[in-house]
């Protein structure tokens, strides 16, 4: 049987089919094509592009996982300063005499603010989006609905101890949260 033959359906179904066929589906939004072809021109990976579109990149230390990052920094501090030599955080926060830094160690961190405690310099080397999730939240006055995008990523960061020149690369879990207003049409 040829299912594509119009006689496959009874007259009422054919009328409905014709009615549906006369409707013009809505296409993507006006900005959609621009985004898509910009991504093609840039030759970017679909997943990376999608994540980047969700929100501009923010440094991991500005996200809500700062406590985790700080804990990682503290753990690193302890690791770099074995028992007997370690300083308290209060001591570490005091101004330290200038120390000559090893060549190339900080070239990527020129515009990066100092870590808490001022004892380590660091530079972001790489980041990998682990997971992206979102939920919908309402404004306090219910005037709008927002898409709250949470992006979890592992960021590879290079720490350099200015005292010893010791360089350590660690992976730090980060979360970036952004709000996008939802158009409810």
């Amino acid at each position, binding site marked *: 049987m040829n299912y594509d033959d119009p006689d496959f359906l009874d007259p009422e179904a054919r009328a409905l089919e014709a009615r549906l066929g006369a409707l013009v589906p*809505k296409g993507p939004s006006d900005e959609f094509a621009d985004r898509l072809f910009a991504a093609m021109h840039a030759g970017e990976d679909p997943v990376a592009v999608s994540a980047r579109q969700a929100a501009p990149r923010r440094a991991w230390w500005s996200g809500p996982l700062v406590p985790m990052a700080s804990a990682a920094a503290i753990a690193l501090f302890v690791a770099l300063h074995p028992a007997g030599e370690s300083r308290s955080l209060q001591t570490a926060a005091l101004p330290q005499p200038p120390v000559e830094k090893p060549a190339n160690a900080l070239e990527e961190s020129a515009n990066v603010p100092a870590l808490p405690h001022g004892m380590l310099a660091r530079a972001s080397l790489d980041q990998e989006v682990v997971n992206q999730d979102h939920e919908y939240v309402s404004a306090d006055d219910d005037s709008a609905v927002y898409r709250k995008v949470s992006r979890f990523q592992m960021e590879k960061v290079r720490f350099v101890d200015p005292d010893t020149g010791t360089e350590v690369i660690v992976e730090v879990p980060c979360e970036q949260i952004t709000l996008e207003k939802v158009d409810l049409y």
Partner: protein
Amino acid sequence: MLKNNPDSGNPGSDPWRQWYDENSTKLMMFARQQLRRPSDAEDVLHNAILKVWSARKRRAGGVAPTETPDPAEIYTAIRRTAIDLGRRETRRAAREEKVIELEDARGISYFDDPFDEAERNDEISKALRKLPVAQREVVALKIWGELTFAEIGQTLEISENTAASRYRYAMEGLRRILGKGRESYFKNLMVI
């Protein structure tokens, strides 16, 4: 026949751009059968097109492809991307439900509505949403995608018979939903 590509910086003669302009509404319609939120459907459509484009570019040795996708290929990519998204986001489905209900109540239409047709089109959109996804996607591919049942079967990885059956069930379902309590509805349709 196709001279330029997306890397050429000349979108006017970009075959992918032409392909997009000719197909974007039907692709979006299909994506919206997979996902209830238009914004999610756009995300899926974006990623699906880029995936196909990137795969072709890799096969071409890094050169931007000029050959545009065939229907089965792009619809399959949209469907798989939507399934992946669905898997990742199942856990937040309940949280979204409230927003989706709100949108459904507002009657977000699948269609561009001429003013005098808006109400009826909205009714059809709501009726379509009440069908199972498996039937909706066949309807979208058959009516707006203009695929044959054989092509639909290939796209959805089902037999041609199954595709045709789902379509017939879908039409029956739509008639039942649209005609509920209104015997005259189909009589009106018949004289259009």
